[in-house]
Structures are given as structure tokens and as C-alpha cells.
């Protein structure tokens, strides 16, 4: 353990804003990418399912 207390951990020897800023933006950017990709995947699957259903309905109707 490199830190004697929680407060020392947050302070990071005086470099707190730099270290937590760096880790913070890392988590935000990587998390944002992941969320964006997964959201897009969901939307694409929904749209595809919707279109397949629509095509099915059309085919049944045109019989």
C-alpha cells in the first residue's frame, strides 16, 4: 500500500487533479465509446427486426 490514508490517496502527493483528471477522462472516453457502440448495436438489431416483420406482413398480404 503506497498511501497511509484515504485523504493521502485523493491528494496523490499534491498531483491529485492531474492524476484523477487523467484517469477520469480515460474512463469517460472509453465508457462513452462502449455505450455508444452497444446502443448502436441495439438500434440496428431493432431496425432489422422491424424490417423483417414488415416484409413478412407484406408477403402475407400480397398472397
Amino acid at each position, binding site marked *: 500500500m*503506497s498511501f497511509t490514508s484515504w485523504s493521502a490517496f485523493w491528494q496523490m502527493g499534491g*498531483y491529485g487533479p492531474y*492524476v484523477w483528471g*487523467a484517469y477520469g477522462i*480515460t474512463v469517460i472516453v472509453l465508457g462513452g465509446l*462502449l455505450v455508444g457502440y452497444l446502443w448502436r448495436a441495439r438500434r440496428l438489431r431493432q431496425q432489422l427486426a422491424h424490417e423483417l416483420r414488415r416484409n413478412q406482413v407484406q408477403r402475407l398480404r400480397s398472397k
Partner: protein
Amino acid sequence: MSTAYSWVTAFYHLAAPPRCYQLIGVLLPWLGGGAALFFIVGCVWGLVFSPPDYQQGDSVRIMYVHVPAAMGSMAVYVLMALMGAIGLIWHIKIADMMARSCAPVGAAFTVLALVTGSLWGKPTWGTYWVWDARLTSELILLFLYMGYIAVQNAIEDRDKAAHAGALIALVGLVNIPIIHYSVEWWNTLHQGTSLFKLKPSLDSRLLMPLVVMLVAYALIAWTLILIGTRNEILLRRRQSIPVQPWKKST
């Protein structure tokens, strides 16, 4: 049917997007789970259990997010250029799809490398930015990624977009060795090579969490790139773009 022809068709069959879709689905839980695990372990190790540097103090902990992002930004670019070349030469669509998904991930890693590097530079060198060879060439890498994304978004025909992008990626490939060797060729503020030497000049107590984070970032990159590739497969399917290599898009 000759043996050579059946090998070629077997390869094309394997590279077919529906197969790739399934394969990615199988790999993703492992890649994603591994990425999360290594990232958490690496962060905790780097932030809590590794020692501070005798000169830089606790600001050295930024290394554990800066170095993997920087190396990742270059590795993803090389993958993007390689996939682009494969798509350009052999018209294998899945390569084009993967190249396209590499771009946002690589750009994000480049931004992270630049920002975390800035935050590390301020306490270490006293400045957020300097126009030295390494920082400047990394910034150029960001511009290359942005240009790649912009060109692909501007071209409607997805195959033509992929080929234009591939050309950009290949032309910009020269930047990668420039970034890497910049600290040797020029007098830079950025420190010299510590890792890619016969004897890495980093204490093992700092080297080990760094290696964990390098693995984490590699897994993160692959997870994101494969999710993106799968999205691209779905998107092309929706737009009814033919997937066989010998068919052209309308």
C-alpha cells in the same frame, strides 16, 4: 473443381460476414470480460499498490493510462491500414468493415494519449504542450484519424468509401515509425524509449502494472473494434449491400 479454387472459396466462405457475425458473438464475452478484469486490476495496482517515483512522485501513475493509450493509438492505426490494404487488394468486405470500425477507437486512444500526456507534462515539465517531434507527430495521427472518418462519412458508396479510406490510412502509415523513432532522431522534450529495448529501463514494480494495463487496452481495443465490425455487418445487411467479394455495390 481444382483444389486451389476450393481453398479460395473456403477462405471467402470463412470471411463471409454472417460467419464473422457469429464468430464475433462467441469471442466478445471473453474479450470484454478480460478487458474489464485487466483494466480494473491494472488501475488498482497502478493507483494503490505501486510505488511513487522518486523524482515525479505520484504523478507517475498517469503513465499507466498514458502509455497504453499511446501505444494503442499506433497499433490500431496499423491494424486499420492493414485491413484497408486487404480490402483494397482482395476486395474482402469484412476487412473494409473492420478498418472502418478501427477509426473511432484509434482516434479516442489518440485523444487520450494527448490529454493524459498533457496532464502528465504540466507537473513534470511545467507545460501542457510543446511542439516537439513526438507530441506533434501524435497530433498529426489524430488529424489522420479525423480525415479518415470524415472521408468515409462523405462518400455514400460504402465500398468506395472503404477504398478511399484505405488509401489515406496507407499514406499516413509513415507517421507511425516517425512517432516511434522521434525521440531518437530529434532532440525532444518527451523522454526516450524505455520499453522497446533489450533491457527495459523501468523498475519491475512499475513495469508490471504497466504490462497489465497494456494487455487491458489491447483487449479493450479489440472488444470495441469487434462490436463496431458487427454493427457494420448489420448496417450493410440493412442497406442490402452484397457481401460476396465479386459483387459490386450499386
